[in-house]
């Protein structure tokens, strides 16, 4: 309390600093949105900072009208749903089985799982195995290898073991087997935990570009993020406008002042907007998910 003016000044500085931080996080999205809603050739002159100067929706029309992008979107949605639901299902089964403390061989099985968290064969042997299992160049390469998550399983076990023992006992007294106990006791009580882990899994699928870039070569299998990754280094606009009517499309694009950059910004916004939209509503689940796994342990 000796120098309150000094602490007041410091407090003000902290608030300003944190406000600037928020601006620095949010501004790039606003900037990209403005560029994507602006005529490309006009944006290339510079000076579009916050608001589109020459408003147009043509970039989005081109992007959403593109067959390849729409298909990539379907792949992303498909793998996100299947990968998340399947992943939670497989992992929850294992976690539930291992939450029985008296299960014979429990420690051995836990060790078997823990070892995979500490060691791995590396990228190339994994790739060889994908090839041997004939998973390369199939949709399933996005789903099957990631179904079981050791990390999520440990979070789930911790959570399930936090459920009062009496609930399990009364369920068993009612004559319920493990399957019924899982469905009537564990699943309903684990909803917040499942939501949190499911969100992380879903975001992981939505954002993964690596599998699409290296485990498949068939262009009809690539997800949106891989499409974005390929477009990142594209030199001209024909990459987005499709190959069948290339010349015509190129001519049309120059008429409508489309540039590669304006199209790129529209594609990236189309991939980012779903996350931006759900994030404010779901962010508390994300935080919860991290904390279940680490701090309470």
């Amino acid at each position: 309390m000796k120098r309150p003016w000094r602490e007041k000044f410091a407090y003000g500085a902290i608030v300003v600093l944190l406000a600037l931080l928020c601006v620095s996080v949010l501004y790039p999205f606003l900037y990209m949105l403005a560029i994507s809603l602006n005529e490309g050739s006009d944006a290339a002159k510079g000076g579009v900072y916050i608001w589109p100067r020459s408003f147009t929706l043509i970039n989005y029309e081109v992007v959403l009208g593109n067959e390849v992008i729409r298909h990539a979107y379907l792949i992303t949605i498909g793998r996100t749903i299947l990968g998340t639901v399947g992943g939670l299902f497989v992992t929850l089964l294992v976690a539930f089985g291992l939450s029985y403390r008296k299960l014979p061989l429990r420690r051995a099985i836990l060790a078997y799982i823990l070892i995979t968290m500490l060691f791995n064969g590396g990228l190339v042997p994994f790739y060889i195995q994908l090839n041997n299992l004939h998973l390369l160049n199939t949709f399933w390469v996005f789903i099957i290898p990631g179904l079981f998550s050791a990390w999520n399983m440990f979070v789930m076990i911790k959570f399930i073991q936090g459920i009062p023992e009496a609930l399990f006992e009364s369920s068993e007294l009612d004559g319920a087997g493990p399957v019924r106990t899982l469905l009537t006791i564990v699943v309903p009580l684990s909803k917040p935990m499942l939501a949190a882990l499911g969100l992380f899994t879903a975001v992981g699928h939505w954002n993964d570009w690596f599998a699409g870039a290296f485990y498949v070569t068939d262009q009809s299998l690539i997800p949106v993020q891989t499409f974005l990754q390929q477009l990142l280094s594209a030199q001209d606009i024909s990459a987005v406008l499709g190959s069948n009517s290339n010349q015509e499309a190129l001519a049309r694009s120059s008429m409508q002042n489309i540039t590669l950059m304006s199209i790129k910004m529209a594609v990236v916004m189309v991939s980012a907007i779903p996350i931006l939209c759900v994030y404010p509503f779901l962010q508390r689940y994300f935080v919860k998910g991290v904390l279940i796994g680490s701090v309470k342990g």
Partner: protein
Amino acid sequence: MYAKLYKYRWQYLMILPGAVLLFLFNYIPMAGVQVAFRDFQLGTSIWNSPWVGMDNFEFVHEPQFWTVVRNTLYISVLKFVFGFPAPIVLALLINEVKHSPFKRFVQSVSYLPHFFSWIVVAYMLQSFLTLDGGLVNDLIGKMGGEPVFFLGSAEWFRPIVVTSGLWKETGWNTILYLAAITTIDPQLYEAAKVEGAGRWAQIRHITLPGIVPTISIVLILSIPSLITAGLDQIYPLMNSANMDVSDVLDTYVLRSGLQQGYFGMSTAVGLLSSVISLLLVLGTNWMSRKLNGEGLW
């Protein structure tokens, strides 16, 4: 014994799918590390490939390999030097905020970039740094400077990697520290206030010591990443102009293995780097046991 195993048959059945997945996608690739000592071609069996001793480790005589090692260390150490303290500082700053809606807002916004892929970040960088009307070159031009082709230059590569890394992960990495701060006994602060300690003294003598255990865990856990510079982040930013500084161990393995088909050699590189990271983990664990009296396990 069999009766006991039979009693838990449902539990074993539930664990089985996860165990099989781990066997297929973790244990077989671990055994596949022997490719590092064999002459293997894709499509043939690993077990029938001829042993070649240490032939696949010839890369240690190539200067390019050492450039890659140097690049990896350079980038990962830089990222560590800036990326490790930043979340601690940010968590302390956020903790100073008394107005809780603002505090929650800052937290939510600062976590946001974590949920976007590095591909999206690469697009952001392109939009800001492009020569055609990008914000940064636009401002440089207005101040009378010469435009800089940031993404196509070797000397700007490392600053871009460090800055974008800070932008994306600093906020998210504050979560554990903020959670640790909430577990500090409020009475300690009350007592300090009575004794006339200002905010700064409270941070130094109560908050910081209170999060030291978290800091040391995060420190230990981040040691293995010292030899992986972050493929996800670097690959999208890599191009022929910055190759001399951007090529790291992960991208080297990826290129020589998956793209050029040198499976033995790239597995050998991967094996060497995992052995080093294992040694780093064991070393830090040993050190923390010496210093704190307890290790991670």
